[in-house]
């Protein structure tokens, strides 16, 4: 990217260029989709190859790391979910590692793709290449994941309580009443509260992850865009390094929170009243 030394028009244009998605003709964000797919396949292939070569003797370093992650996630699931973990634990592992990989793309240098395209195809092509490299900084990705979690909670609720039990509980919890009149009166407030509770979970899950990643990316862009002259090069490097170190913690924390909240919501949906 050509260096605009501090002129605010250049900074706005720089940031807006880096915030633009690469969309297909029908509006799908191709960059988020492809990056998420590649990272998901990378995670699956890595863990599958480690599991295939697993030995009961002294493990290799890769196998030890994979075992550590699997045991950590299994411990978290076991703490919260008291049922058959055969589906929930791999789901939690996938969510944790996939979200962590997608978040970790934020640590790559901002202009990496731009410089690559520039060296291959020249500056004009680099000006027209848009690629957002962090899929979880795209609201569509996070909402897609939280919608799947939401559908899973409904599925597990119906599985635990039965279709009729689930519908009945929508209208009779949390305010319980005895007597037909009181029950009919409380049905609507109960239903409203249940709708709010059910809808707030996926929305908060998605917005929390998106907000953290989008904010992190925006601060990286601002530091890169503001410290772009030779005078401010060293302070820019220091600020970038400090924010990146803090962001490593945020990445891990957000992946962990997404996983734990998924497991907690599924456990709450699975229990009988």
């Amino acid at each position: 990217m050509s260096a605009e030394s501090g002129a605010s028009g250049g900074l706005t244009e720089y940031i807006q260029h880096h915030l633009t998605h690469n969309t297909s003709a029908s509006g799908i964000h191709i960059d988020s989709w492809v990056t998420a797919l590649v990272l998901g396949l990378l995670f699956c292939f890595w863990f599958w190859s480690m599991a295939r070569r697993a030995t009961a003797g002294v493990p290799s370093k890769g196998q030890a790391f994979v075992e550590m992650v699997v045991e950590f996630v299994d411990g978290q699931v076991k703490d919260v979910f008291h049922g058959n973990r055969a589906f929930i634990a791999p789901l939690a592992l996938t969510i944790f590692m996939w979200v962590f990989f997608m978040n970790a793309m934020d640590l790559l240098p901002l202009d990496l793709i731009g410089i690559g395209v520039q060296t291959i195809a020249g500056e004009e092509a680099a000006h027209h290449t848009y690629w957002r490299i962090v899929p979880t900084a795209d609201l569509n990705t996070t909402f897609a994941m939280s919608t799947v979690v939401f559908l899973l909670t409904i599925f597990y609720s119906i599985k635990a309580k039965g279709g009729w039990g689930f519908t009945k509980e929508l209208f009779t919890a949390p305010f319980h009443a005895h007597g037909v009149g009181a029950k009919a009166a409380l049905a609507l407030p109960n239903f409203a509260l249940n709708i709010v509770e059910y809808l707030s979970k996926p929305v908060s899950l998605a917005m929390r992850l998106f907000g953290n990643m989008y904010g992190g990316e925006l601060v990286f862009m601002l530091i890169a865009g503001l410290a772009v002259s030779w005078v401010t090069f060293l302070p820019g490097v220091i600020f970038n390094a400090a924010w990146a170190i803090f962001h490593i913690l945020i990445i891990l924390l957000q992946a962990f929170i997404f996983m734990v909240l998924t497991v907690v919501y599924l456990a709450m949906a699975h229990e009988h009243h």
Partner: protein
Amino acid sequence: MEFIAQIQSFTAIAAGLIIGLGAMGACIGIGIMGSKFLESAARQPELVPMLQARMFLLAGLIDAAFIIGLAIAMFFAIANPLLTALPK
């Protein structure tokens, strides 16, 4: 011209309020939670690893609303859609 100045000024004030009030809430929340954690760690040091894991989880949850507000405020500060919606 006055419309543009008005939209820009209101956006700037709104962004400042969002970030400031959100930060105030998040910091007070983390402060209260941290003080309770330290208190219970001093009372029962053998529980510290478990409490620390829960504390990080809660810190992420407390920061969530603030960072969502921060992202929205930055979005309005950088690429203001209200400004681009003005008829040319």
